[in-house]
């Protein structure tokens, strides 16, 4: 439903109301900005000296390597989660009950606990048990365990949202379970779920900031050190936030482009929004997802 149906084309009086609301709204936002600027200036937070670190090429290089480390860990954990998640989704639909149960337990367990608790356990618990890995792999492990569960839910939703005729036709052709998955269901499901997969990757990228506690030298950690060193704590965190927004907004833009492409007539097969089937994907943007799988009792199609 487009928002414009909610109200008429504004008449003269409505236009005055809208103008008044606009003025008040913009005024409030403006006031907030003004107060913020006054406060910042009053506490010398806008002083040139506090911001000069952003023009120091050495510091920018330091932060850039932090960003690189963030992207590195996100890419590796993302690729692993994608692969494992895909396998899990297949297991959850497999004709073997034990396999379905195991995959469901795995998924539900990781989706029920905080990623940070998992990372604490891996980073500080496992070493006391004698496990010895570089912090990079600790973080990859933590992010992968959790995100593979989320990706599994996304794939599963994608598969069960396909029309049952797809599966039936494949079976009628004599294809086995694996062939049906590989040749018929998965290719369509993946295509359908690309936007969800990309937005979950954004979540994963944001979650990589949890590596801060290990500590893994990612962007947030390097931002903290820069703030300490340059005596610009507030400014360093602002810079870090801006970089995250820029990277993630680009990824989200990509997701929207892919979504728009799917809505085009040629891709109509996948046109109905499967996201509505699984609340987890709607909530996936929040560093997490729900255990609730509505799709569990939904028929395949």
């Amino acid at each position, binding site marked *: 439903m487009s928002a414009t149906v909610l109200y008429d084309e504004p008449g003269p009086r409505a236009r005055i109301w809208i103008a008044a609301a606009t003025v008040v709204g913009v005024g409030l936002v403006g006031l907030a900005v003004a107060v913020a600027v006054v406060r910042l200036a009053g506490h010398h937070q806008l002083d040139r000296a506090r911001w000069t670190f952003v023009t*120091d090429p*050495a*510091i920018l290089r*330091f*932060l850039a*390597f*932090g960003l*690189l*480390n963030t*992207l*590195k860990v996100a*890419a*590796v954990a993302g*690729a692993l989660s994608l692969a494992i998640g895909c396998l899990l989704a297949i297991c959850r639909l497999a004709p073997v009950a034990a396999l379905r149960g195991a995959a469901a337990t795995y998924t539900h367990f990781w989706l029920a606990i905080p990623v940070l608790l998992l990372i604490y356990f891996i*980073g*500080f618990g496992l*070493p*006391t048990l*004698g496990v*010895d890995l*570089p*912090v*990079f792999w600790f973080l990859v492990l933590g992010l992968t365990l959790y995100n593979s569960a989320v990706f599994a839910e996304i794939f599963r939703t994608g598969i069960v949202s396909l029309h049952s005729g797809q599966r039936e036709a494949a079976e009628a052709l004599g294809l086995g379970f694996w062939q049906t998955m590989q040749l018929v269901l998965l290719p369509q499901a*993946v*295509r359908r779920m*690309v936007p969800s997969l990309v937005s979950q990757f954004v979540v994963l990228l944001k979650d990589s900031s949890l590596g801060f*506690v*290990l*500590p*893994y*030298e990612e962007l947030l*950690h*390097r931002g*903290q*050190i*820069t703030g*300490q*060193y*340059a*005596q610009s*704590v507030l400014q360093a965190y602002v810079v870090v936030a801006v970089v995250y927004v820029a990277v993630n907004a680009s990824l989200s833009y990509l997701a929207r482009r892919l979504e728009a*492409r*799917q809505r*085009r*007539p*040629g*891709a109509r097969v996948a046109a109905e929004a499967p996201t509505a089937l699984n609340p987890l994907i709607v909530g996936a943007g929040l560093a997490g997802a729900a255990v609730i799988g509505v799709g569990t009792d939904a028929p395949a199609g």
Partner: protein
Amino acid sequence: MFRRSRLSARLSSVTVGLAAALALTLAACGDDDGSGPGPAAASGATPAGGYKLTQATDFPASPTLDKIRQRGEIIVGTKFDQPLFGLQNPTNDKIEGFDTEIARLLSIRIFGSPDKIQFLQTVSKNREPFIQQGKVDIVIATYTINDARKKLVDFAGPYYTAGQDIMVKSDNTAIRGVADLNGKKVCTVEGSTSEKNLREKAPTADVVLVDTYSSCAEQLIDGRVEAVTTDNVVLLGLISQHKDDLKLVGTTFTTEPYGIGLTKGDDAFRTFVNDTLEEAYQNGDWAKAFQSTVGKVAPTVPTTPTIDRYTA
């Protein structure tokens, strides 16, 4: 049909892109650019002032020492975010601070050069496992010696005695010790050992409790409290952020001996490290290391601590 094949072409190009990104990532993991979390996280810098310490002429039989000498450098676990003790300098990736200088003294003792060090970042929670797994040879990371930790690792030193101290505004001359806090507004963190000590040592102080020490510092600068009290290392870190506004009173009223964490049981190495520290105490290198780091903020150079050569 045409459109569909275009779509799948696009999808396969996405797949190819992902694969390329992954390959790139794996390649990037392989080469050590000095920024990764591996042991080569950062290399040591040349000390600002020359130290008098020289390379040892003979080395005791010690597995740790043999390993270090064979490798050609010493792997030191330290903090990267502790101002004045171990803080990474983002302009050159080097670690700077008093803990780092102590590591340099050891490097001189073993290799005759202060730079044969790899610093590996440790945090409070992973120091024991890092030593036990041999990820690091030693840990110098504002590491308080206590009996619980002695069950897991050995300690050389102490090389510094930290303790609870008082921070005031730079122009304050009225507060000279913990007794002067009585009747004054004093800020500390709720539920901390510092709060307990404060209530014991200055029972009539007007205690203001907050969640973080940086918040205490802000309140002090704003004039809402007259003093802040906790470990001097924390206070010095805050002062390094506000050199013009804040200062340390410099009279500690508790003791937290900082030691160098070592693998348990290598007593020959522990003696070697203790001997090195003792020599640095005597020839003035320790004081020089202190002055070039913590001394930039602390009011005085403390007296050298007494080495504790305990028997395990």
